[in-house]
C-alpha cells in the first residue's frame, strides 16, 4: 500500500506578518516556518495506517522554498519512509501547488492508494489543494475528516458538517482525504527518529521537473496589505438603573450609525 502525505510549511502562528514593500507578498526572511498544523494530523493518520499495515510505504511531499528547518524532516522523524520536495516559491496558487504535488507523486513511480493532507494551510487558508489534486488525479476526495477506518479496499471516514453533525462516507481507494483536528493526536518526532530521518531518501525536484510552469497559475496575487487596526472597544456604564434606558439607546444608535450592523 502506498500512502502519500502532502505537507506545507507555514509561518509559525506567532509570526508578525509584514507585507513586502511592493505588496507582492509577505516578508519571509525572518519568519519561523513550521509544518502546517493540520498536516500533522495527516502525517499521524498515515503512520497509524502503516502501523496496522506494516508493508505500507509512507511518502511525504512538499512544494515550496527550501527552509532553514525543513518540515519534511520531522515528518520522516515521526516515521514516514521517504520524502520529496518540489522547490518553488512560497506564493504559488492552489492550482500550481496541486499540479506540482501530482507531478511529484507520479515521479516516485508508486501508485497511490491513499493521499492525505491537512484540510487547509493556516497561512493562506485556501482550503482547496486536496480537492484540486483529487480532481487532477481523477480520484474521489473527502474533506474535513475527523474519523478514519480501513474497510478492505475502501475507507470509512467521518466528516464534520455545520452544527457539529457528522457525515459518514464509505469511499473506494485510491482516495484523497483532507484531515481536520480531532482525527488523531499527532506523535512527537523523537530524537532517535530525527537521527534516522537523515538516512531516509529525500528526492528534490524543480517545478519544471514535475511539469509546472508559470502558465499554470490561475490566481495572481496583486496586493498584500495588513487589515486596518481595530479601534479600541467602547465601554458603557449601565450600573445606574435610572440611566439604563439612555445607555441602551446610545448603544443601539452606535450599532446603527457607526458599526452599521443593525
Amino acid at each position, binding site marked *: 500500500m502506498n500512502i502519500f502525505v502532502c505537507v506545507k510549511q507555514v509561518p509559525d502562528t506567532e509570526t508578525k506578518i509584514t507585507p513586502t514593500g511592493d505588496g507582492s507578498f509577505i516578508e519571509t526572511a525572518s519568519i519561523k516556518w513550521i509544518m502546517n498544523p493540520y498536516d500533522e494530523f495527516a502525517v499521524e493518520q498515515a503512520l497509524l495506517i502503516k502501523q496496522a499495515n506494516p508493508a505500507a510505504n509512507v511518502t511525504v511531499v512538499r512544494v515550496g522554498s527550501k527552509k*532553514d*528547518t*525543513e518540515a519534511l*524532516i*520531522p515528518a520522516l*522523524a515521526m516515521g514516514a519512509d521517504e520524502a520529496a520536495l518540489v522547490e518553488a516559491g512560497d506564493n504559488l496558487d492552489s492550482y500550481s501547488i496541486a499540479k506540482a504535488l501530482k507531478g511529484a507523486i507520479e515521479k516516485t513511480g508508486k501508485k497511490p492508494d491513499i493521499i492525505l493532507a491537512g484540510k487547509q494551510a493556516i497561512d493562506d487558508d485556501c482550503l482547496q489543494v486536496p480537492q484540486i489534486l483529487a480532481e487532477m488525479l481523477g480520484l474521489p476526495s473527502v474533506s474535513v475528516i475527523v474519523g478514519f477506518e480501513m474497510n478492505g479496499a475502501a475507507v470509512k471516514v467521518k466528516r464534520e458538517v455545520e452544527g457539529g453533525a457528522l457525515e459518514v462516507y464509505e469511499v473506494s481507494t485510491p482516495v484523497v482525504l483532507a484531515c481536520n483536528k480531532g482525527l488523531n493526536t499527532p506523535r*512527537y*518526532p*523523537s*530524537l*532517535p*527518529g*530525527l*537521527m534516522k530521518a*537523515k538516512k531516509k531518501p529525500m528526492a528534490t525536484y524543480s517545478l519544471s521537473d514535475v511539469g509546472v510552469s508559470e502558465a499554470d497559475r490561475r490566481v495572481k496575487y496583486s496586493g498584500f496589505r495588513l487589515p486596518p487596526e481595530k479601534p479600541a472597544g467602547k465601554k458603557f456604564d449601565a450600573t445606574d438603573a435610572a440611566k439604563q434606558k439612555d445607555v441602551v439607546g446610545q448603544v443601539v444608535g452606535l450599532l446603527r450609525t457607526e458599526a452599521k450592523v443593525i
Partner: protein
Amino acid sequence: MDFSLSAEQREIRELALKFAKNEMIPHAQEYDEHGKFPTEIFKKAWELGLINACIPAEYGGAGFSAIDGVIIGEALAYGCMGMNTSFMANDLALLPIVIGGSDEQKKRFLTPFTQEFKIASFCLTEPGNGSDAGGIKTQIKDGGDHWIVNGEKMWITNAGYADLFVVYGTIDPNLKHKGISAVVVDPKTPGIEIGKKEDKMGHRSSDTRGIRFNNVKVPKENMLGKPGDGWNIAMSTLDHSRPLVASSALGGAQRAMDLSVHYAKERNQFGVPLAKHQAIQFMIAEMGMKIEAARLLVYKSAWLCDQGIRNTEIASYAKAFASDSCMQITTDAVQIYGGYGYSKEYPVEKLMRDAKLIQIYEGTSQIQRLVMAREILK
C-alpha cells in the same frame, strides 16, 4: 569561526522546544503549586530521547555532543526550570559513570537507562558540606568482599524516585581530597533511609531529599575507578555538567524575556504600550544583551568539552554568568509585569523563584568566582 548551529542542531532545538511548549509550560504552574513530581512528563521526554543525552552511542545512547546537550537543556528549561532539574539530575548522576566507569560498569549501569525509563541521583552534598565538597564525611569502608557506606547526604535531587545513586564518600578523612571515592548504589539496598521531600521556594516539582546510609553494603565492583579517584571524577563531572546547568539558567532567562517582550507590547500605560517607555526598553535591552552573552559562554564551554579541551574556567564563567543573569532577568520580568508579576496567576513570579536555585546548586555563584580566580591566577 562559525556561530551557526547545524541543521541537525536546529531540528533538535525545535523538537525540544515543541515538547517544552506543549507538554511542560501548560503544566508547570500546577506541578509547582502542588510540589508534584513530573513522572509522566519525565517519562514522555525520555521516550522522545530528550533525557540522558550524556550516554555515549556505544552504550545505547544517541551519541550527542555536549553542544547538543546544552541545546536540549536550554529548551527544556524554557518549559520549566523545576522539571528540568529533575531531568538534568539524570545526566549529572550518570556523568561520573561515563567519565570514571570501566567498560563493564558502563554496560551494567548506563545501558539500562537507554532501554527503559529510569531515574538517577548524584549524591555529593552533605548536611555539613556544600561548597566545601572536599570535606565529605560519608565513609566508604572496605568490608572484605564489599564496601560499607555510612553517612548522610543532603539536597539530593530525585532521591525519592531514583533507581540508581552515585554516592561520594571518603575511605579516610585524613587523606582529604585524595580519600574521596565514588560508588554506584542501588537505592533499595538495606540500610538506606530516604528523608522527606523538602518544601522549597522554587523548583518545587523536583524531588529533593536527605538520605541516610547505615552500614549499607555495596558490591566491590561498583566503585568507579580506584579508591581515591572520586575527587577527580567529581571535578571532571562538574566540568561537563556546569555548561548544562548554565543552559538551564539560559532557558529560564529566555522564557522570562519572551514573556516580558510580549507583555510590554500588550499592556498600555499612559496611553501607550509599556514597550514605548524607555524605562521598560532599557530592562528589555539588558535582558537581550545578557542572554546573548550567556549563550555564547554556554556554547563555548560545551564546545571546549567536545574538543576535549579543559573548560574549567569558561564553564565557571558560563554557570555564574548565566545563573546571575537569569536571576536579574526574571526579577526584571516581575518588575515589568508590575503587580500582576507578583501574583501567582501570572508565570513570572515562578521564574524568579526558580532562578534563585541555579545561583546556588552545582557550585554557588561565589564558588564559581573562586574557581575562575584560581584558574586565572595559577
